[in-house]
């Protein structure tokens, strides 16, 4: 029998953390699929990684800087062009508090 890694309730919680609404049907389907996928991920548990450094990315580059010079950037109009809702020079957001 396969291990139950995640319950439906946990899927609901993680989806909330990720800000993605799910229907009841999706919650059930995703729970099933996630458990199958996580079961496959278990494969790497048995790899011995004692003392191994993580690879965040493959290049030996750190702290890449450019000179602090002013360069042209987007105008307000261009920057706002793709916003679905706006008013004057502002992006309109939903109620925060």
């Amino acid at each position, binding site marked *: 029998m396969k291990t139950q890694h995640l319950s439906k309730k946990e899927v609901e919680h*993680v989806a909330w953390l990720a800000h*993605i609404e799910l229907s009841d049907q999706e919650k059930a389907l*995703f729970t099933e*699929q996630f458990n199958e996928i996580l079961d496959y*991920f278990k494969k790497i548990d048995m790899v011995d990684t004692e003392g191994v450094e993580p*690879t965040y990315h493959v290049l030996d580059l750190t702290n*890449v800087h450019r000179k602090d010079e002013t360069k042209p950037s987007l105008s307000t109009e261009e920057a706002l062009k793709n916003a679905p809702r706006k008013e004057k020079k502002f992006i309109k957001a*939903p109620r925060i508090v």
Partner: protein
Amino acid sequence: MPELHELTARETIRKIRGNEVAAQECVEAVFERIHKLENKINAYVTLTEEQALKKAKEIDTKISKGKQVGKLTGISIAIKDAICTKGITTTCSSRMLQNFVPPYDAEVIERIKQEDGIIIGKTNMDEFAMGSSTETSYFGPTRNPWDTSRVPGGSSGGSAACITTDEATLSLGTDTGGSIRCPASYCSVVGLKPTYGLVSRYGLIAYANSLEQIGPMAKDVTDCALFLSVIAGHDSKDGTSVDAAPKDYTEYLKDSVEGFRVGVPREFFGEGTSEDVEKQVWNGIHRLEELGATIEETSLPTLEHSLATYYIIAMSEASSNLARYDGLRYGYRVDKDEGDWATVYSQDRRAGFGAEVRRRIILGTYALSAGYYNKYYMKALKVRTLIRNNFEQAYKKFDVLIGPTMPFPPFKIGEKIEDPLALYMSDVDTVSANLAGLPAISVPCGFTDGLPIGMQILAPPLREDLVLQTAYTFEQNTGYRNRKPAVN
């Protein structure tokens, strides 16, 4: 005499420069193909015919005035819809970005324009590049030109299919875990994932940024090398850009593999590999042996863990990268926004993202969450180090490593889409190159029941020369590139 749309990029450039044909005629010929075939293939999300013809006329004027023209003069180039094009809708094949018009060009687009290449449209893909079949596109699947009931591979499915059908002469794809090589294999074209950092990612809509690269797709290896020479190079706008000297990669195209040491990792022929694929790829390897390479079977035991490692890292990075889609600055916003911000965001993101994108964001969020970070994400990063080390060891003994690109031939549309894990399994041979940041190419190596098979060649970081020379020699001594699909 081949027709204009059938010509390679270099043949087209030679004819245009030599005044045998106008750039405008070449672009018109390609659009004729597009209008004839698009209802069967669906390779494009957006076409830019008017701008393309205008640009072609400008190039023709330049030539008639005796002015200098660029390395991609008059070439019809299709761009994967994950790459930002100024003033041209860039959707990532997602409802989330269906109306997004970038205010700037990606670095690769600037480079193409500087060399007088012509952008003819934006190609279909798996939504946010998450998939191996181009079925998760909000705009419907692209169809495989060799059998339109089958998938073209993915996620750069449109960019591969349009090359097969001559609906473009060159195209750009992106490759996070095989997204250039998989469709190249399934559509019988050439596709190269460059070394991580060789091509600027500035203007590429991010999915998993420690893994992905933009790369060329073409009708043959020479065109692929030509296109790479234009797009590769340092860019100060990308913090992970490698400061390597610009190269003309076509200089490495020698018809010889004399003395090349080829390693064949047995892990590339693991469980689930079809017999036909195994046989045909081995035929290809033996062909290289006849041409002077030495062949040795080898083992890279850590490759067994590549797929799980890849998916944990890719999903984790995706959950962070796609957090930007809040429906405010750009993206999809539901009609009424009642309730607090968290509720509105959750609704925007539910409606804007398809199922596979939501699955990966949620699983990635889980892998990064308190209590699971070490078990999944950190563990995967450490295994990634072991995989890199394993490659490093192997390259002390071998110049290139070779295996299949895909474990099985193109499958039917709808066959795997209900089973995410089964679809993930198709990436088993491609993800390792992304984890280790290596250059890897897929080159056509045969057919089974009329369906294409691709051979994958991998080399150490920044050794695109070895990858290209091996692929070129193979192509010159086999006839697979001349075969064309029946679709017309």
